[in-house]
């Protein structure tokens, strides 16, 4: 801080310039703080929704695994895996992105995970009803998981942005603003000091002049 102070020239021009910089920094600080508040609200809301969604999706997944195991026990592991390999594996996600307070966040538009047994592609002849059930349950799980993935990704990105914003707010609040303020105080002090100097000098000159006049 002292080093920064030592390098500036104590002029009125500099003072005005610094005051303007403080104003700008303060405005930036306030804006960033507002952004942080908005992000935080979004962040906590999402975190809460994730909690519910997780329970739902993971519950579905557990059920799907149970159905798959039943199917494996009934049809045989190799046959089930074979059926899985025969399945048309062309499922596509429609993904776009949206922006929350300037943070790019992926958004799953739609998942058409549910299919009819005939669309799946494995042979209906060798597959059993248990296989259909397991496949259906996994399809449903998948659409739930897509929603969850979207939210988790959003929370992760918002969290990172939040940290970055907080760092900037703190940098402004605890480093830049105090430094600028101390510089302003320094210049103001120097200017006042010079003012007083000048005043004393004028007084003295005046006295000298008057003394000469008085002597005349």
């Amino acid at each position, binding site marked *: 801080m002292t080093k920064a102070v030592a390098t500036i020239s104590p002029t009125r021009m500099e003072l005005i310039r610094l005051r303007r910089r403080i104003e700008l920094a303060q405005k930036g600080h306030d804006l960033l703080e507002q952004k942080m508040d908005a992000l*935080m609200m979004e*962040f*906590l809301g999402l*975190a*809460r929704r*994730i*909690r519910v969604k*997780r329970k739902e999706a*993971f519950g579905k*997944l*557990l059920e*799907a*695994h149970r159905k*798959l*195991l039943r199917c*494996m026990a009934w049809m045989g592991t190799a046959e*089930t*895996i074979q*059926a*899985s*390999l025969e*399945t*048309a*594996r*062309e*499922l*596509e*996600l*429609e*993904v*776009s*992105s949206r922006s929350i307070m300037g943070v*790019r*966040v*992926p958004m799953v538009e739609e998942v058409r*995970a549910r*299919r009819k047994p005939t669309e*799946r592609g*494995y042979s209906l002849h060798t597959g059993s009803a248990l*296989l259909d059930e*397991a*496949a259906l349950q*996994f*399809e449903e*799980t*998948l659409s739930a*998981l*897509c929603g*969850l*993935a*979207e939210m*988790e*990704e959003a*929370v*992760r*990105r918002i*969290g990172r942005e*939040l*940290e970055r914003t*907080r760092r900037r707010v703190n940098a402004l609040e605890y480093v830049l603003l105090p430094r600028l303020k101390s510089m302003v105080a320094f210049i103001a002090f120097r200017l006042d000091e010079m003012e007083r100097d000048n005043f004393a000098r004028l007084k003295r000159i005046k006295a000298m002049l008057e003394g000469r006049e008085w002597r005349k």
Partner: protein
Amino acid sequence: MKCKIAAVGDLETITGFGLAGVTHLHLHRERAETLEKIKALLSDPEVGLILLTARVKEELSEELGELLKFKGPLPMVLTIPDKEGYYPPAVDELERLVRRTAGVEVVLG
């Protein structure tokens, strides 16, 4: 934008998601191989979502941590429990993130 899905995990997990129509499947056998596969999936612009079982994630946590930190918005990566419902809270970086940024304890599990 159309994207494909990928799943990495144990046999049951990939069999099940294969039945559901997931395009890229990878059976986790050894670290190096799986890591290569995940790297390839992460850099593939066609892939929109990667499902990882918690067990794989835990096993590869050191290498994955860096990878996941610096990836773009896509593909999304989601950690899921495996057939036994194995999903330890220790893996949950999301809860940690919430605690660090919001300063409040939020239980997501």
